[in-house]
């Protein structure tokens, strides 16, 4: 009897020990705080700047850095803060004011009032002999800084089969402000072999519109070509003759109203489905439904109509050579800013399939079909082949092909007519295809032995991508990412 009692007590204590052990080994969602620092340098050039109506230099550089800190609040909850800053210089946006004047297209004015912009305009002097779509202006609009802060929180259930998330974001650049909120729910089934995710986001964005300087100034100067911005400046016709500003045939914008609705709202619903197919392969399907409304055109982008007379400022002898990159001293006055519908529905569907081939090579693939009600359809195919060259180093060669049809409202420079309701010469909405080739490497130290202060270096990722579009646009981007874990 005594032996039986001892055995039972031993078993009970064993069960108790086992339970304690199980609880102790419940894996935390995030073991320790992590810090991700990511930086990139982007450069592009091309000949189809939208700011100058579909022709002109697209030279642009952008330097961006983000800091992401993920903090485990307890076993189940993680709080993440992401701060990003991106600073660009752009030849095309500098040509918002191609006449290279002081405080031209920036300087703290929201361009919708009557006084401050006009007074700035009156105090400036036009430089008319160096304006061209192919020449970068030194005006304030040549550069801008985009900053963003996003906060997110996730809660995982004890069995790790349910994950709830919430996020909020704020982003600001000179002419644009965005506020976003969202929530997500992820459920795992089938011994975590199947995962279904739902995500909803709302972005309430606001324009502080900035316009091509001639359009803005004309309206600010009470449509008077003898005052303010245009005072003392010769305007030329197609033949290079100086027009009589008090005559009948004079330049004027096609419309006397610019942005009348400064909001741009985006509502998105995302559904994802992931499935483990075998011990070495898995697949995921993504489906988004995105509805946008508000001012969806970019007020910085000029449009020129083929059925309206052309007028210029600058060197008359260069007019015949206007669309050539050799034109450095004449600029055509815009007919209007681009106009696009105030509603857009986007439906992208994506599939991702990954295959672990062997201990050296992994296959990562992605395909997306995209449709929207502006007439654009596109396909994106991407392949990446991570190659482990040692325990700590991996190479990442990749290739991406992208193709899209043109928006119903796109036409090149001087090919729209003023009878159209909507129009743009933005080549990002044209028909094109692009090829992107990338190579990168990563260094991973799972034990994070190297330290900076209390942060252990867990991984370094460096990657370069070269991007070429059949419209002539070329771009390159180099990124470097560092992941640290807190001791």
């Amino acid at each position: 009897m005594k032996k039986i009692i001892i055995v039972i007590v031993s078993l009970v204590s064993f069960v108790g020990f086992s339970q304690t052990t199980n609880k102790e080994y419940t894996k935390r969602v995030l073991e320790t705080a992590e810090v991700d620092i990511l930086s990139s340098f982007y450069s592009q050039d091309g000949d189809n700047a939208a700011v100058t109506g579909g022709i002109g230099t697209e030279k642009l550089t952008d330097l961006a850095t983000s800091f992401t800190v993920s903090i485990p609040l307890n076993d189940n909850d993680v709080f993440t803060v992401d701060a990003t800053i991106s600073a660009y210089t752009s030849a095309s946006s500098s040509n918002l004011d191609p006449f290279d004047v002081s405080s031209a297209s920036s300087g703290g004015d929201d361009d919708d009032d009557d006084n401050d912009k006009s007074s700035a305009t009156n105090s400036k002097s036009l430089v008319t002999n160096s304006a061209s779509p192919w020449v970068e202006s030194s005006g304030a609009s040549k550069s801008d800084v985009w900053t963003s802060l996003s906060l997110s929180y996730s809660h995982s259930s004890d069995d790790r089969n349910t994950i709830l998330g919430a996020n909020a974001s704020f982003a600001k650049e000179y002419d644009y402000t965005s506020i976003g909120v969202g929530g997500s729910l992820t459920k795992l089934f089938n011994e975590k072999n199947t995962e279904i995710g739902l995500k909803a986001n709302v972005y309430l964005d606001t324009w502080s519109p900035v316009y091509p300087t001639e359009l803005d100034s004309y309206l600010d100067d009470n449509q008077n070509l003898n005052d303010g911005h245009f005072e003392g400046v010769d305007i030329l016709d197609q033949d290079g003759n100086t027009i009589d500003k008090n005559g009948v045939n004079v330049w004027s914008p096609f419309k006397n109203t610019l942005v009348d609705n400064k909001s741009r709202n985006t509502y998105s619903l995302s559904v994802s489905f992931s499935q483990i197919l075998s011990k070495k392969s898995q697949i995921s399907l993504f489906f988004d439904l995105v509805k946008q409304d508000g001012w969806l055109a970019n007020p910085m982008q000029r449009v020129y109509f083929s059925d309206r007379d052309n007028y210029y400022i600058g060197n008359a002898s260069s007019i015949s050579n206007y669309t050539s990159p050799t034109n450095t001293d004449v600029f055509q006055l815009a007919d209007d800013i681009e106009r696009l519908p105030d509603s857009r529905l986007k439906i992208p569907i994506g599939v991702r399939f990954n295959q672990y081939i062997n201990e050296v090579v992994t296959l990562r693939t992605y395909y997306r079909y995209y449709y929207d009600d502006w007439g654009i359809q596109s396909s994106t195919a991407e392949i990446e082949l991570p190659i482990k060259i040692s325990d700590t180093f991996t190479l990442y060669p990749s290739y991406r092909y992208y193709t899209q049809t043109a928006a119903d409202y796109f036409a090149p420079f001087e090919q729209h007519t003023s009878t159209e309701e909507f129009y743009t010469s933005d080549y990002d909405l044209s028909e094109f295809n692009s090829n992107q080739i990338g190579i990168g490497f990563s260094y991973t130290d799972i034990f994070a032995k190297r330290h900076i202060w209390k942060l252990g270096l867990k991984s370094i990722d460096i990657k370069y991508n070269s991007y070429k579009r059949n419209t002539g646009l070329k771009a390159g981007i180099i990124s470097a990412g560092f992941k640290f874990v807190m001791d």
Partner: protein
Amino acid sequence: MIKKISLLLLSLCSLTSCVVVKEYEKVYLNDPDMILAAKKANKFVTSFQVYREAASGANGGKSGGGCGCN
């Protein structure tokens, strides 16, 4: 279009009948390169694509808003 999507969804749902992979058998699936999402290091690459191309979304990340891009 809807028919094709429905067929694809049905096909994927049927995959749940595949052999269930146990937690201890997921060593290859847990490899960092097997993650079913774009890598964090590609964040700015995705950003420039969103600016330069009309299509966006359906990659597990952001699908609009936050910038004056398309």
